């Protein structure tokens, strides 16, 4: 077979392939699936509920609310994880917020809205455990920052910010975290 005919066949094959790809692109609706890192972060959020003490006045109902501010990286995964779990007798529920103003009754907040600094400022001293993963999250007054080192999740805890919000973090958690305290 001549190279010219091979060439034409190849171009044809290519065109068909592109058409097929477009067809697939438009024809199916994908569902969200959190990355491994986000799955582990979700597990940490649940763990924090067990290693942090909130003052009694932090609660307004019989639920413990884990909030997500901004983009939700966890999807259904977080719900599946906290299903049937309790914090001091309170059932855990997950709520999602698009702005700081929507937050009324929330004990643990994962901030992922691209502007954590403003949210941290607005929520300081409100008995809310703030968690995020922006590089400056803990330095700017967020309480727990996730970061990744050697392929593993690490925690950075701003102890001063937690104390000022009336939260007490278990030494068991502090021992495995990088702790920063504002001078």
């Amino acid at each position, binding site marked *: 077979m001549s190279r010219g005919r091979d060439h034409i066949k190849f171009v044809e094959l290519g*065109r068909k392939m592109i058409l097929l790809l477009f067809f697939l692109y438009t024809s199916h609706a994908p569902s969200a699936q959190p990355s491994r890192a986000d799955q582990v972060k979700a597990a940490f959020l649940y763990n924090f509920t067990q290693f942090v003490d909130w003052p009694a006045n932090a609660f307004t109902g019989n639920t413990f609310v884990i909030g997500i501010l901004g983009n939700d990286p966890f999807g259904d995964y977080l719900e599946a994880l906290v299903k049937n779990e309790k914090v001091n007798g309170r059932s855990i529920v997950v709520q999602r917020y698009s702005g700081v103003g929507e937050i009324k009754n929330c004990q643990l907040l994962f901030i992922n809205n691209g502007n954590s600094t403003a949210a941290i400022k607005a929520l300081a001293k409100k008995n809310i455990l703030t968690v995020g993963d922006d590089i400056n999250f803990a330095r700017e007054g967020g309480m727990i920052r996730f970061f990744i080192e050697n392929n593993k999740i690490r925690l950075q805890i701003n102890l001063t910010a937690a104390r000022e919000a009336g939260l007490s973090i278990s030494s068991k958690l502090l021992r495995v975290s990088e702790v920063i305290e504002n001078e």
Partner: protein
Amino acid sequence: MSKEMMPPGKRCQKKACFSLQALLILLLLSLLSPLRGLAQPALSPKELKRLSVEELLNIEVTLVSRTPEKLTEAASAIQVITGEDIRRSGATHLAEALRLVANLQVAQLSSSVWIISARGFNNVFANKLLVMIDGRTVYTPLYGGVLWEQQHALLEDIDRIEVVSGPGGTLWGANAVNGVINIITKSAKRTEGLYASVAGGDFINNMEALRYGGKIGDRISYRLFGKHFSRDATASATASNNHDAWTMTEAGFRVDWDPTLKDAVTIEGELYAGKRKTLPLASASNGQNLMARWSRTFSPRSDMSLQLYYDRYLRKDAPTASSDMINTVDADFQNHFRIKSQDLIWGMGYRFVKDDAHFDIAAGAGIVPRFKRLDLFTAFVQDEIHLVDSLRLIAGTKLLHNEYTGWEWQPSVRLAWTSHYQTIWAAVSRAVRTPSRFDVDYFLPMTPQPPTVPSVAGGPNFMSEKLMAYELGYRVQPNKVSSFSFAAFYNVYKDVYSVEPLPGTLTYQIQNGSEGRSWGIELAGGYEISKRWRLRTGYTYLDKNIHAKPGHNFDPSYLANDVRNNLMLQSILDLPLHLQLDVVARHLDGLGKTFATAKVPVYNTADARLAWANKGFELSVVGQNIGQKNHTEFGTYFIPRSFYVKLNARF
């Protein structure tokens, strides 16, 4: 070593223009970026919430760099190929897998020889790249390059390959002038069970692999593996073929042991033996290596690792009755800790190399003296300082002492600004390529000649080649499904290799009579269109000006057979009915003819894989280099279009 270049021959002509169109369309597509999740094997929520905090902290969560930062925060031109990218590409050898990043130029010379470089200076003895497999350095001190046909790993068990283009000499070794390739295999914890595969085709005659992984108690995981392949000869323009078929058999193991939560021990080793067909007799090679690494995490702020390895290889070349045997023993220590806003990493290492380069007098050229001991001592320190909130200064240097030129230093300074999933970085680095035996001890012929007879009499005064590199980069991950990176570089090379006659004689010596500059840009992007369809792409532009230094008479153009435009697109697609359709398309500009190398025409080609995967079984049909019947990538050997069928099972 019979790696000499062949005279230019007949070339293939037609090129397929489809892949460029396809790339453009797909590139445009990749700019659409809805926010969706990454597809990775899920840990069940039930499993996960039962784990302790310590155990959660021990889960490997990403596929990114070994450096203590997220990929989006990395202040270098790093690109990562994951094991999954490789498995879905249809690659059958490590060198083929490296085609999956466009900041490398991968040129297959013959059935068993690949020439790979980053940022230029691609030639048969390409020597400006540092390559490591699980921390073991694999470039040979014989000529400073990598004998890719002797580098093996079960592709199935590769975790990721990190490719850093640009100098990495401060943290890594003496050869990290233009880049570092870090090949990392999975922990034995992640390779439990049986994997078996058989494949056969018209170029890959047969290829088999077997691996079994298991556990001893709670803390020890292991795997044992073996593989074998036989590959056909490349096509020749003048003869029936190039008589370069080869076979290779390899066996290896890896043990991962966590004696405590803070300690991790890895021990791994391999043996291989193979045969390249050469005329009139075949050339055998074999090798063995053993590596042990202990790492300890003192606290989240501090850790250290200690690594020891032994490596031996023997490579024979029957046509020239020559062989090279190298024994290497290497010890490395490294410690990392944080104080306030500083992140400090330092380490030291010692490498002992014993070379037995046996060249027959009849071979003409050779290495004199035959035996040589090469000691290498290294130490490095690097500090990463958080200046203000998002600004980091990363400064450090490597100090090394080598047999030929004594002390050398390789400092670098980087500045990085990171905010919301994006990083802008700039770097200035100095790197050196220390002399190899081919630079200093190369003689043609091997016996002393009078000045009236043409000869090459080594490089007694050869110094290290030096590079000053200026880099600028940007990387961003605007959402969970897309990532993009850009790097630009300007390199100034001094004291580059040359071969020149001593004044008034015909006695040539290897000198540092060349110099030059190179510049270019590198783009890379990844985009997950949906849970079922993922794209990766890369583009590199490279240009240069290398020439003899004033007062020197040498044409260095054959040292740098570099493509100007290099474009790659990988598409990984899951179809209904357990089908997978994957394509890797690439475009490489041609190479000009030099006095020592052949012209290589521009080529567009692709690898395609169609597979059915269900319940641990996978049947795939792969076409490699399907763009044309055959093409050359370097020299004159034709790399054919080829197909293979592969069946594998994972239990």
